């Protein structure tokens, strides 16, 4: 089976749409009434019909399409160049001459087709046939092609020879005149499709012939095939699981306690769920057990978790994580200082609160810190996050600290019904004027409070190195006496 090579030339070019239009015109030209008048060409002793003069063609085009003479000449020239009409007296000169030089129409088999290009095997057969006919006299470029094809499709060569001989013999069964016409046709076809050197090749489009405009599409689709896909059953399953888990926490679907502030104008819900409230609600604490992300995104949860981590002497992990978050989302003008501080505090060898990350990550981070930016600590942060998630989180959920928090958590009472509230509001507004709505504290103040709390905590943290050094000092005097 021949491997059909990807034809990057004509196939993709929309310019080839004109072929159909030319064919329509060609067929119109054949009309005995409105088409072109034909003459007979006399060759040696034979008469071959259906020859037309160049001038006739030109006149017909002018009359049919109503265009200027220049355009008509150009169009007629293109007909000849693409091989729909071929010249009889100067076969190699594929131009339309507006005089009495004779042309003939090409048989439809040899019309240019968009879907397949002239085949090498066919060309080889043609050259072999010509060889037989002319007893070895081929043009120079034809000889070159012949030798090149012999090498290129050598495995088909026996077939080429066989087929050439057979086609030649079969041709003999036809009339002499027909044989001559056939020869002319074939010669014209191959002049168009395998142009001799020096002749303009109309089927070539210049430099961008080699690039395929569909290339980008092909690449995209190839990558799309290779892309890993998640089955919709799997992704939908995940969505369902998430929805089921969080259903009870959704204020719209399951209602919220004490009451929805937008409906009852009662901000108690927000007060009870403030960021660092003293006693969180039960729903909130239960949510921390769903997954690690819930815990770490909730400031109260973080606080509680930090307590637990201190007991386990891995408090620096969470502090480092928080510092990285601050670097990412904080003031970018202070990136350099912040990064340096973090390095001094957490990453430098012998730092006060040294975090335990593996060598490669440390290498990448230190390298990146030379040119610090927002995400320079991403790798280290991810490592610490995964460490906490896989290691400490499990233990936290079983720890007494969490259980205590869960027990302490309150379940707010549902407030009075809507109708009664409305009545109360109306009465209230009626009796005491406008109800005084207390505004929540300004975010700026809240942030200041947070930062103060952080600073206090940082000052009081005990870090592992101090503890270990203390332990060492304590152990050493004990060790000394025994050797004595």
């Amino acid at each position, binding site marked *: *089976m021949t491997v059909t090579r990807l034809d990057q030339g004509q196939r993709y070019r929309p310019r080839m749409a004109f072929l159909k239009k030319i064919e329509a015109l060609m067929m119109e030209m054949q009309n005995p009434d409105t088409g072109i008048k034909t003459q007979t060409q006399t060759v040696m002793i034979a008469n071959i019909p259906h020859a037309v003069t160049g001038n006739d063609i030109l006149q017909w085009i002018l009359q049919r399409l109503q265009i200027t003479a220049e355009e008509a000449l150009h169009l007629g020239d293109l007909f000849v160049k693409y091989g729909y009409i071929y010249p009889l007296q100067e076969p190699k000169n594929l131009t339309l001459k507006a005089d009495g030089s004779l042309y003939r129409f090409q048989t439809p088999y040899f019309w240019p087709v968009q879907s397949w290009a002239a085949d090498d095997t066919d060309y080889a057969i043609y050259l072999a046939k010509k060889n037989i006919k002319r007893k070895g006299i081929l043009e120079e470029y034809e000889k070159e092609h012949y030798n090149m094809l012999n090498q290129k499709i050598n495995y088909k060569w026996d077939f080429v020879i066989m087929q050439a001989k057979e086609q030649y013999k079969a041709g003999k069964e*036809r009339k002499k005149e027909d044989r001559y016409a056939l020869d002319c046709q074939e010669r014209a076809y191959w002049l168009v499709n395998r142009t001799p050197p020096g002749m303009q090749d109309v089927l070539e489009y210049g430099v961008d012939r080699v690039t395929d405009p569909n290339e980008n599409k092909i690449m995209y689709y190839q990558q799309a095939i290779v892309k890993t896909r998640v089955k919709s059953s799997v992704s939908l399953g995940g969505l369902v699981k998430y929805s089921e888990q969080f259903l009870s926490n959704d204020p719209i679907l399951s209602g919220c306690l004490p009451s929805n502030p937008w409906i009852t104008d009662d901000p108690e819900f927000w007060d009870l769920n403030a960021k660092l409230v003293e006693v969180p609600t039960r729903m909130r604490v239960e949510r921390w057990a769903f997954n690690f992300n819930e815990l770490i995104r909730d400031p109260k949860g973080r606080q509680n978790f930090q307590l637990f981590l201190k007991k386990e002497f891995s408090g620096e992990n969470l502090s480092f994580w928080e510092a990285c978050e601050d670097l990412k989302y904080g003031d970018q003008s202070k990136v350099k200082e912040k990064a340096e501080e973090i390095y001094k505090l957490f990453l430098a060898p012998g730092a006060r609160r040294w975090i335990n990350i593996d060598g490669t990550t440390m290498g990448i981070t230190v390298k990146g810190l030379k040119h610090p930016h927002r995400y320079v600590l991403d790798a280290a942060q991810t490592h610490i996050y995964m460490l906490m998630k896989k290691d400490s989180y499990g233990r936290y959920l079983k720890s007494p600290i969490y259980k205590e928090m869960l027990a302490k958590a309150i379940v707010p009472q549902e407030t009075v019904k809507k109708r009664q509230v409305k009545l109360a509001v109306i009465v209230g507004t009626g009796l005491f004027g406008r109800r005084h709505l207390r505004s929540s504290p300004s975010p700026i103040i809240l942030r200041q409070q947070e930062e103060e709390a952080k600073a206090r905590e940082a000052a009081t943290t005990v870090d592992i190195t101090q503890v270990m050094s203390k332990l060492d000092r304590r152990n050493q005097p004990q060790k000394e006496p025994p050797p004595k």
Partner: protein
Amino acid sequence: MVKEECKALLDALNKVTACYRHMVLTIGGTSDSQNLREELKKTRQKAQELAVANRNKLTTVLKDKTVSKEDKAEFERLWVIFSTCLEILEIDMRRALELGHEFPLNVPKKHLIQTGMSGGTSGVAARAMSVQNMKYEAEHNIDVVDLKDLENEINQVGEMMYEMEMKVNVPQWTVEAKQDPGAELKSTISVGASSIGMISVEENKSFCDISKVLAGIVFSAVLIIAIVLAVCVVKLS
């Protein structure tokens, strides 16, 4: 024995393919006719029969493990020739389908392209079918009716080629051609000097011939004059 049979079958297929190509060339031209379409149909069917016969024979041989190495190489060569022939046949059949659609014969508005052909293709068809004369017995609208069959047959050929490719594992590029380039010239095909397709060559030839002829004439003229003079001398003396 088997080799000769295979070769004979392959030659027959080759011949029919060549004839089919000749006939497809004339579709749409002035020698197109209902007869041509019928010839195409018959030739095509014959080609398919031969193709099936070839395939069966060659597959049995190639699957046979007891064949010697040289024989196997020879059969692989035949296989490559066979598959190439089938490809050419398929391409021609597809072309015939396209052209058949474009040039229906009984539509008065559609005119055939005046390609300069005036004779028919019955000789070629007779050669393909290996008969003396072609008999035409089809209905007058075979050009349209046949197209459906043609489509089916193209699909069949396509399937056959696919099956062949799957079942027989012969890498084509390992086959070496037996014939050298230019082998066609050594054949004993006589190039008809009466063929008028060799105008330019004949002109050259005739030019050389003219000089030779002139030389011949001059020589014979000189000879005659010499003889006449001798006779005169003899007579006078």
